[in-house]
């Protein structure tokens, strides 16, 4: 290929700061692909193409790409050509973050935009002339490339170049027919007059920009020290002078306290094990929660302690010095290495407050929903109109001269207090994006309707192992489950041995790698479950129909089959196959447990056994019962084996909601898990474990596994202390000793103690994570909680993207043995590690969102209590932690954790009357290791110790700008006496009450708003369909975040 060689002369800064003349080669070629569907020339047409069904192509220049990238991200804007010149300008001037944003935009198959490498094309490249400024040259190049592009497409499509450079508009505006040069504002006005959101965003960005300019001119007195340049930070980190870490702002003292968690323990900082405290806004120096920062330690005499008293997130600081704990390493931020800004949900201050802010109504300090984010200054004229709404803003900059960061308004979410608005806020805060599936994604889906159900393809049938006639396969799931992704089978082989089978829906057969659906699923990474709704990872045609292993229909599956020795159940052989199966029964847990226990009443509930004559029924039933009991037997055996290696059984209090066909709640899964749940879980763990083995053997450097690192011993301190208060000792040296000592720590009088101890143990654990085997040494693959050396996720491809990746790896691993090409299925180590990071983040976001939505529902439930429902707010509580001015209480009835004060804001302490009900009186507090004593001035004293039962009243503290929080108030220091007999019943009904009632009241509110009485809320408004595996196996994995609802102190920060 003939290439033209030219040279560029650059002046760079040399090592000693002198400028150095550098000559770089620059090759030009005739064969740069235009990536346009209209192209008639012989350009290669692979990869993403610019569509030909738009009215024009738009070419943004450097300035537009740098400043208005967010607007260009609107999916409505189509046919965007990013010139390489513009991309490079972004890379050099705006930094990696924005450049990556641009790269992702271009990579995203859903956006109609491309990059054209104009500087490498021999006709569209223009050398920079002597004395020409960089900006002028960039504009000229981009214009020239736009003209070339227009001519290349033979003038079939007008090209619009948008620029902010007035000179360019006048100079080039009329130069070439068909190539228009206009300003960005002009472009939006003329071409997208209806795209209101874009216009608003444009105004808001523009205003923010102007302000920044005027501010930099003013430059009055610096509020913060300047950040150090990157080179100095890097050198400093290397030499150990500065320390790199991630900033975590304290939830409860967001104004003052933040911790820096160390990142990548270097050899020099090993003596510094703990986190570093950053005290005060000046020391934090404009870093925002989540940023990667460089920290310099302060001298020892300036070290401070953290506050341990309970507090209520007051904006002003009232912390007296005496409540601080021992001094810990304290430092100050000297530079930010990576900013981690996202979009934030904020609320405008109420009218009275905003007036007091004074001077111009244009600039407003808005308050983020997340306490840990500082107030953001934005300019908008819409402040009045947006008073009662939750809105999204974006932070643009934070100059050293300004107390608060500058930002701009992006969009409105919904009214404050409105269910939909609040849920939208939760989604944005966790960066969850759940637009409905697009047409192009749906068009990739196979067709299946009730009239024309999906059928097995005869060609595919030949390739797969057919288990339809040979195996008795059945699924066991919770009631109302739609997406059945796993099924089981067991049978006796001719040689007398047993064959155990786990069959998982073959999702990857329908979701091709890098298809639109795949891209979307990867972006979502998991199905999101909120209390009253869920957001699917895959379109429902797959998740609820074609990939769901329903009974009586043929389905594709991936099966793992083990041959077991008949007596000892030793593994003899394992094989992995693509199969066709037909599930015989779709059982619910209760029915399966009934069969196992020999309870014949449940037989009537099994649909598949109806309409059969008595003899066949008995025969079939006998077969099924044999299979279930055999499975249970095998599972017990497996479990015992794992227990002997130290598998942990941990406690997570979770109340599951069950639904009937119409998605109405009718019951709760009993808190004691049925044994059959363990059986299913154990089989899944086995399948996951063996698949992990297989893929890590075949792809030692690029397999996706799941690790659970052992916890750091110091996190167990609190657990040991609490246990010793009750006279138990907990041995945390290994998972085995921990499991054993937790089993022993059981108070026969009070089962909640054991539960609390287990939940504390879970709090101390680190999270299980996905990782790529190429990125960490083999000894770290271990899964601590399950006590397995290798583990992955394979069994739920419908709702987790990790499982889809593992399915592809497994396919590749089995293909590997037959033929060569596996490229499509396998990621490189680096890509996979990146993907794992993404999935881990999304998973955490999903858990946070679920937790927050639960909290939202609790608050709505307790908020509208009337006198007659008052009773439900009073409950029994158990003290599980002591603080200097209060205690942390667990309410078993609702599974809530919260803080209760022993000393209130006026400085009064609690005291008890004759009937042991409590009152506030002046007095003092004394805190001991395991108890707290309040003494009034009159000499009466009350002592609260760990694991005491008290009666608390639950009430909701409402807040305009933040999420409502649940507060507890001690009203009696004796266990709660229920007057009526329905205690136990209460216990179970409560959560269903809650969700039902909250949605009803939300419904009522909506109706009131739209007086016309349009029926907006229909069935799917209350669609629950929670089919999260309700098994112990689930709990084990997601235990940490699903555990107790913690509205009080975060234990570790």
């Amino acid at each position, binding site marked *: *290929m003939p*290439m033209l*060689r030219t*040279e560029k002369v650059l002046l760079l800064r040399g090592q000693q700061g002198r400028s150095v003349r550098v000559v770089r*080669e*620059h090759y030009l070629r005739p064969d740069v692909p235009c990536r346009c569907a209209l192209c008639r020339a012989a350009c290669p047409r692979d990869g993403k193409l610019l569509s030909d069904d738009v009215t024009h192509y738009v070419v943004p220049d450097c300035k537009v790409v740098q400043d208005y990238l967010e607007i260009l991200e609107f999916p409505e804007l189509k046919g965007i050509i990013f010139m390489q010149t513009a991309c490079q300008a972004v890379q050099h001037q705006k930094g990696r973050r924005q450049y990556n944003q641009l790269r992702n935009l271009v990579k995203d198959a859903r956006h109609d935009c491309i990059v054209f*490498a104009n*500087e490498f094309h021999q006709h569209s490249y223009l050398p920079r002339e002597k004395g020409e400024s960089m900006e002028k040259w960039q504009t000229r190049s981009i214009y020239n490339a736009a003209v070339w592009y227009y001519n290349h497409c033979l003038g079939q499509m007008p090209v619009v170049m948008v620029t902010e450079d007035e000179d360019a508009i006048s100079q080039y505006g009329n130069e070439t027919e068909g190539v228009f040069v206009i300003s960005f504002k002009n472009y939006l006005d003329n071409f997208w007059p209806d795209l209101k959101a874009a216009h608003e965003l444009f105004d808001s960005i523009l205003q923010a920009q102007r302000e920044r300019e005027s501010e930099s001119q003013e430059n009055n007195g610096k509020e913060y020290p300047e950040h150090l340049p990157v*080179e100095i930070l890097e050198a400093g980190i290397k030499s150990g002078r500065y320390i790199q870490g991630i900033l975590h702002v304290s939830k409860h003292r967001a104004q003052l306290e933040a911790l820096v968690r160390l990142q990548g323990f270097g050899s020099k900082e090993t003596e510094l094990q703990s986190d570093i405290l950053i005290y005060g806004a000046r020391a934090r120096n404009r870093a925002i929660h989540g940023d990667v920062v460089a920290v310099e330690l302060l001298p020892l005499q300036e070290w401070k302690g953290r506050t341990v008293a309970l507090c209520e997130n007051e904006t002003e600081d009232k912390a007296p010095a005496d409540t601080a704990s021992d001094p810990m390493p304290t430092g100050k931020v000297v530079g930010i290495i990576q900013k981690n800004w996202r979009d934030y949900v904020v609320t405008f201050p109420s009218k009275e407050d905003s007036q007091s802010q004074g001077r111009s109504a244009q600039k407003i300090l808005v308050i983020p929903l997340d306490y840990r984010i500082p107030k953001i200054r934005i300019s908008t004229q819409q402040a009045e109109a947006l008073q009662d709404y939750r809105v999204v803003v974006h932070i643009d900059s934070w100059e050293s001269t300004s107390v608060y960061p500058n930002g701009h308004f992006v969009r409105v979410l919904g009214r404050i207090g409105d269910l939909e608005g609040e849920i939208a806020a939760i989604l944005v805060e966790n960066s969850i994006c759940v637009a409905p599936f697009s047409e192009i994604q749906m068009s990739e889906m196979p067709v299946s309707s009730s009239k024309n159900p999906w059928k097995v393809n005869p060609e595919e049938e030949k390739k797969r192992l057919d288990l339809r006639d040979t195996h008795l396969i059945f699924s066991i799931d919770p009631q109302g489950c739609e997406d059945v992704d796993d099924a089981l089978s067991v049978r006796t082989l001719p040689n007398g041995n047993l064959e155990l089978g786990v069959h998982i829906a073959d999702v990857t057969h329908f979701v091709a790698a890098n298809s639109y659906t795949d891209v979307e699923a990867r972006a979502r990474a998991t199905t999101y479950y909120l209390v009253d709704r869920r957001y699917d990872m895959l379109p429902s045609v797959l998740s609820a129909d074609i990939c769901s292993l329903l009974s009586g229909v043929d389905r594709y599956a991936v099966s793992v089959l083990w041959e077991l020795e008949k007596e000892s159940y030793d593994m003899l052989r394992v094989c992995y196959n693509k199969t066709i199966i037909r599930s015989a029964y779709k059982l619910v847990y209760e029915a399966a447990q009934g069969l196992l226990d020999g309870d014949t009443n449940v037989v009537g509930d099994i649909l598949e056994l109806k309409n059969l004559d008595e003899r066949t029924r008995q025969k079939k039933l006998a077969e099924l019962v044999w299979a279930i009991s055999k499975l249970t037997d095998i599972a017990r055996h497996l479990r015992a084996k794992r227990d002997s290696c130290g598998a942990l059984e941990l406690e997570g209090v979770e109340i599951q909601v069950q639904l009937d066909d119409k998605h109405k709640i009718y019951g709760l899964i009993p808190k004691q898990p049925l044994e059959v749940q363990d059986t299913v879980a154990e089989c899944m763990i086995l399948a996951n474990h063996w698949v992990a083995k297989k893929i890590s053997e075949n792809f030692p450097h690029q397999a996706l596994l799941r690790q659970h690192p052992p916890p750091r011993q110091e996190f167990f301190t609190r657990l040991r202390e609490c246990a010793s208060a009750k006279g138990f000792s907990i041995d945390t040296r290994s998972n085995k000793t921990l499991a054993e000592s937790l089993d022993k720590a059981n108070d026969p009088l009070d089962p909640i103690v054991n539960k609390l101890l287990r939940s504390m143990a879970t709090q101390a654990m680190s999270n299980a994570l996905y990782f790529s085997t190429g990125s960490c040494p083999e000894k770290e693959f271990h899964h601590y909680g399950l006590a397995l050396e290798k583990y992955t996720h394979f069994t739920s491809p419908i709702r987790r993207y990790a499982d889809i990746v593992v399915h592809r790896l497994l396919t590749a691993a089995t293909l590997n043995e037959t033929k060569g090409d596996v490229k499509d299925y396998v990621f490189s180590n680096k890509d996979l590690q990146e993907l794992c990071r993404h999935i881990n983040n999304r998973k955490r976001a999903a858990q946070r969102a679920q937790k927050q939505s639960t909290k939202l529902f609790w608050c709505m439930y307790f908020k509208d209590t009337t006198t007659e429902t008052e009773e439900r707010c009073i409950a029994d509580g158990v003290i599980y932690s002591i603080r200097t001015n209060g205690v942390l209480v667990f309410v078993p009835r609702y599974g809530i954790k919260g803080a209760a004060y022993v000393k209130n804001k006026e400085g009064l302490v609690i005291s008890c009357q004759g009937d042991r009900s409590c009152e506030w009186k002046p007095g003092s507090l004394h805190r001991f290791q395991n108890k707290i004593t309040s003494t009034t001035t009159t000499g009466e004293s009350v002592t609260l110790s760990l694991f005491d039962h008290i009666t608390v009243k639950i009430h909701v503290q409402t807040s305009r700008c933040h999420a409502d929080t649940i507060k507890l108030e001690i009203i009696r220091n004796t266990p709660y006496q229920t007057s009526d007999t329905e205690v136990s019943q209460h216990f179970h009904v409560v959560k269903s009450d809650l969700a039902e009632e909250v949605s009803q009241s939300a419904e009522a509110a909506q109706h009131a708003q739209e007086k016309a009485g349009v029926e907006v809320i229909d069935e799917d408004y209350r669609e629950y369909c929670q089919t999260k595996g309700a098994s112990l196996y689930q709990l084990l994995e997601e235990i940490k975040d699903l555990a107790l609802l913690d509205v009080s102190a975060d234990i570790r920060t």
Partner: protein
Amino acid sequence: MAAPELLSDEGYRADGRRPAELRKIRARMGVFAQADGSAYIEQGNTKALAVVYGPHEMRGSRSKALPDRALVNCQYSVATFGTSERRRRPRGDRQTGELALQLQQTFEAAILTQLHPRSQIDIYVQILQADGGNYCAGVNAATLAVMDAGIPMRDYVCACSAGLAEDTPLADLSSPEEAAGGPRLVLALLPASGQIALLQLSARLHQERLETVLEAAGQACRALHAVLDRVVRERLREVTALLGD
């Protein structure tokens, strides 16, 4: 600071080449009349000059003479003006000494030294402008110079470097690409037989990647061979035309 991007998403390197493309090569043989053989080569902005004397009798201490083959003596230097900041010493430091040794090894493998026992062949290589792949340019220039001197060789020696961007191997690294700090593999190949005269790897490279990088470097060497071969034939045509007159 993060390292610069070696390969853009569109598949171009910073200077506009595709991953497997070489820089522009220009070469000339017989640039000096006094020497027995000489050649000049440009690979992109890297410019190298090679001069060959010999085979001739041993100079200096005769005791060094080898009874069964010729001694290959190499010198390698970078001109003081060859880099963007002026160098103090053109040779004599550790690095150039090492490169000279490597040159010597390479050519001892390629030249049929047993045809000239007890004699000496001198190869002097000077880099006039350094812009990545200095050693490779030196080897290529020296090959042409040895041919110009009419010394029998087994084959051309073609040298080329290769690196790695993410998973894609890059052929013929330029100096900014070398400076990025990735792995660099230098290969000197006898293209006809596919024998390797020298293989050098700096920085760590995963074992699984080695094959692809090596393959890319080999491909580049074969492409280079085609170019060098054309130069030699061209030169031959010139010389025979002169003789014919």
